[in-house]
């Protein structure tokens, strides 16, 4: 187990490193030099060259990379070319927004999805067909479309929730929850449908296992077979499905943040990409990767812990 964890940690580290290189190269392929981006249109060639010189743009690529990486490891992603603020500080203020959004959406997807999936598998018949149909629709409808409909119905027509904006938790826990509600539900529709399908398939597979027959042959009550033994057997692929879903929902927050005007990482990616703000793009790509890889690692270890065969070895 220790060896396994070490291996996975090294893999995670390698992943982040690869993405760091990728982010660095992509940013260097962006049109326009930092000086041009920073000073905007109409700046003189001398001024641009001066800024580029100051930012080390003319240094060899490898030297630039290691300078950037050295600073990034210490949590310093440089200064935004657009507003001159520290990229790290900006991202630090944005991370909680996206984290609450993605975590909330994953949690809601998991609860709804497992509930629906188990119901479909256990009840069969009509319930199964209805849940299957709803999930098929939910997977096919784009999140942004669903989000707009929610805004229209729940915020505009009946002002149950605020339509847009984000209230920090420290300011008011209640408003924080209300401001998160619509974006979280929007993202969770597709996520829940995905997890429901995964759960249904895993439960049906679990119920096909021969040990289920042994349990019945020893008069195990049906509820216990379903919710203790079958669900336990199905838990491995379900948790793996939730891990995949988190990556997806974390990315999905770009759209939710745009739709609901939330100051999260997704908005930062979108803005910095549009404005060619190189340090911001690099920073947000690396931070997003670190978060996703870390959460994935934890969930993967959880999956392994759920499996007696791997736990023992």
């Amino acid at each position, binding site marked *: 187990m220790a060896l396994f964890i070490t291996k996975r940690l090294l*893999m995670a580290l390698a*992943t982040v490193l690869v993405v760091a290189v*990728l982010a660095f190269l*992509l940013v260097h*392929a*962006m049109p326009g030099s930092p000086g041009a981006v920073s000073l905007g249109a109409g700046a003189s060639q001398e001024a641009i060259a001066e800024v580029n010189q100051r930012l080390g743009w003319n240094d060899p690529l490898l030297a630039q990379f290691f300078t950037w990486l050295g600073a990034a490891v210490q949590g310093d992603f440089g200064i935004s070319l657009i507003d001159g603020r520290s990229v790290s500080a900006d991202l630090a203020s944005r991370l909680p927004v996206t984290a609450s959004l993605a975590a909330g959406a994953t949690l809601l997807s998991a609860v709804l999805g497992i509930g629906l999936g188990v119901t479909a598998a*256990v*009840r*069969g*018949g009509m319930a199964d067909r209805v849940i299957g149909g709803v999930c*098929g629709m939910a*997977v*096919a*409808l*784009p999140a*942004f*479309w669903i989000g*707009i409909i929610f*805004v*229209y119905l729940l915020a*505009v027509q009946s002002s149950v929730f605020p339509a847009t904006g984000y209230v920090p938790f420290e300011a008011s826990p209640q408003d924080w929850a209300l401001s998160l509600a619509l974006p979280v539900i929007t993202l969770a529709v597709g996520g829940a449908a995905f997890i429901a*399908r995964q759960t249904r*398939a895993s439960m049906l597979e679990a*119920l*096909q*296992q*021969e*040990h*289920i*027959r*042994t349990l*019945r*042959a*020893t*008069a*195990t*009550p049906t509820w216990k*077979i379903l919710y203790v*033994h*079958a669900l*336990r057997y199905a838990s491995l692929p379900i948790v793996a499905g939730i891990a*995949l879903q988190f*990556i*997806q929902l*974390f*990315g999905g927050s770009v759209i939710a943040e745009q739709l609901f005007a939330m100051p999260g*990482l*997704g908005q930062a*990616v979108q803005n910095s*990409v549009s404005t*060619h703000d190189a340090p911001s*793009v690099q920073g947000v*790509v690396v931070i*997003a*990767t670190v*978060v*996703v890889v870390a959460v*994935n690692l934890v969930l993967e270890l959880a999956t392994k812990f759920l499996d007696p*065969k791997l736990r*023992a070895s």
Partner: protein
Amino acid sequence: MIPNVAPAPADSAEPTAAAVLPKALRQSAVKKFSGSKLFASPASVAGVIWLAVLVAASLTAPLWLPYKTEDQDFTAVLSGPTAAHWLGTDELGRDILSRIFASAAGTLGTSMITVMVAVGLGTTLAMLAAAAGDRVETVISRVTEVMMSLPGTVIILAVIGAVGTNIPLIMAILGVLISAGMYRVMLGQAKSLQSQLYVDAAKVDGVSTLGISLRHVLPGLANTIVVQSALIFAVGMLIQAGLAFIGFGPPIPEPSWGGMIQGASQNVYNAPWLMVPTGAVLALTVLSANAIGNALGKAPNATASHLPSAAARRRRAKAVAAIAAAAPAPNDSAKNTLSVCNLSVGVDSDGAGHGVRLVTDVSFDVEPGTVLGLVGESGCGKTMTALSLLGLLPSGVSVTGGQILWNGRNLAAATDKDMEGVRGREVALISQEPMRALDPMFTVGYQLTAAIRRLRGMGRAEAKAEALGLLEKVGIVDAARILKTYPHQISGGMAQRVAIALALSGRPRLLVADEPTTALDVTVQAEILSLLRGLVKDTGMSVVMVTHDLGVVADLCDQVAVMYAGEVVENGRTDSILDNPRHPYTLALLAADPHANHAADMPERLATISGQVPQPKDWPSTCRFAARCQFAGSACMVPVPLLPSGTGDGLVRCVKADELAVEGLDWVATDVPSHHVLNLVEAGTAPAGPAKAPAGLERRTVEKDHA
């Protein structure tokens, strides 16, 4: 936003009864051309039509569209559907219908780029990993794992930053990211195809690795490729629309679905209608692709569930009530005697059990403390008969008639709730594969003590002591250690001992053992058999033993019922049946069994029974064995009843039984040794078995080469 198309939980089929039918029957369903699957589901037919119409309409758009995409009608800004603008107009008065269809071809076309890159790269990598061996596979798998754990959306946006909104290029890069998931889906299948025997044969013949991959592996992956293509196509469209929605679509004013929804969202307060047409077209297109993928990917026959769904249980309860009403159980049956009368079991294809019959009119009795053997080849209905004794028939199969009388009750007509009181406490089960019969997620100790507490109403500590005692009783020396282990940590023989202990935990009076030694090593088989023999003697319980091994029968059973094609063809006392078999099938089984022949009279060649057990749907109303019987004649072409055989209380189902007994005929080895085949083939005579002919022909060519 970037869905990982990894192990896609496609809508798997409701477990059907066909799964319990013998393999050959399933094959035909699997081999059906996938096209028929496409048109079997109404949703996928609708999907195909919708996509075809969309593509045709979009490609011919300039010819029929009422407006150009940029035409602005200022008299009707943000209008709803009107005669002039069927789907309304946007904030600049542009016709929605025109813009949707004009942009359809581009959307579909660029989504196809993602499909081609993802599927092409994923499949190539999977075939490479499968062909090139473990090291290459490890490297590729690691790389794809890294790709799958990336925040794809953020990476795609960073790429857009570098290359601009070059949609075909972005969709291609998206394809690269998705190919990791595709690889995961394909790898297992490619590896199993690569390890097929015919692929080994091709390798021996010197076909190159590339040749094997293209000729043998790729065609096998075809269906998965089509299924995944449809699903990725849908994903590509959603992502493309999402990118356009956040402003990374085609340059304005070129229309795109995502961009149109973005425009609509700006006006959702004053013109909510605008959300409908574009959203509906996008959703319909995605639904169509998903429907096609799911229809093609549908597993033809999932394995049957061991715990039927609530809906299936309700159906079965109804059927059971009907049986109970039809035949009330007599109260005069003897204590601890099992009496099965005219039991029939069928597949629920049309209504409960009214499809194909798997077991017909089976009757036998088991006296207290005796062992009955159910013998026959695979596919003769032995296991179905045995499982019906516990009411544990798989989903989609049920008892259709007859009675299972046990202690004054008809178990065939008992509700599931009643059966819960019988299972474990009165009738217990041992299955064929001990490793799979135990729950891999729980320790042996947990499974055993939970059963003891439930079945015997004991407390935790008492149950643990009882579990230790039971394990010792089944011959496990270090019981305390075994209690703490998980099933995967013990050997097959040990697991079968645990399974037997589990079956004994409720002190049953009848044990149903479904081939309990088949999956074990020969030495372990003997130990388990002697354990069972001892248990019968000590506890006085009766046993129904399903087996195809006549050695086991001779060793353990007091009575035998020989089953062929779902019916009992002969039954009686073990010694009289083994010494004096009356039915040709029994004769054949004995002649074909190496253990049943004593060393002294062991023939030079063992006999075989040509052909195989027919599929349940092909069972004739006349003698079911006639097609394979050495003694069959025109007299056999009538329905044959089970009649007294003349030896003791034995019964036999054969019109020629008396004739055979008088003449003392034996089932003989008919297969012709291969050195005779040469002459036979040259003489133009058909060889005995079709399978033997090629072997004989090959031998001839080899011999000629040597000469």
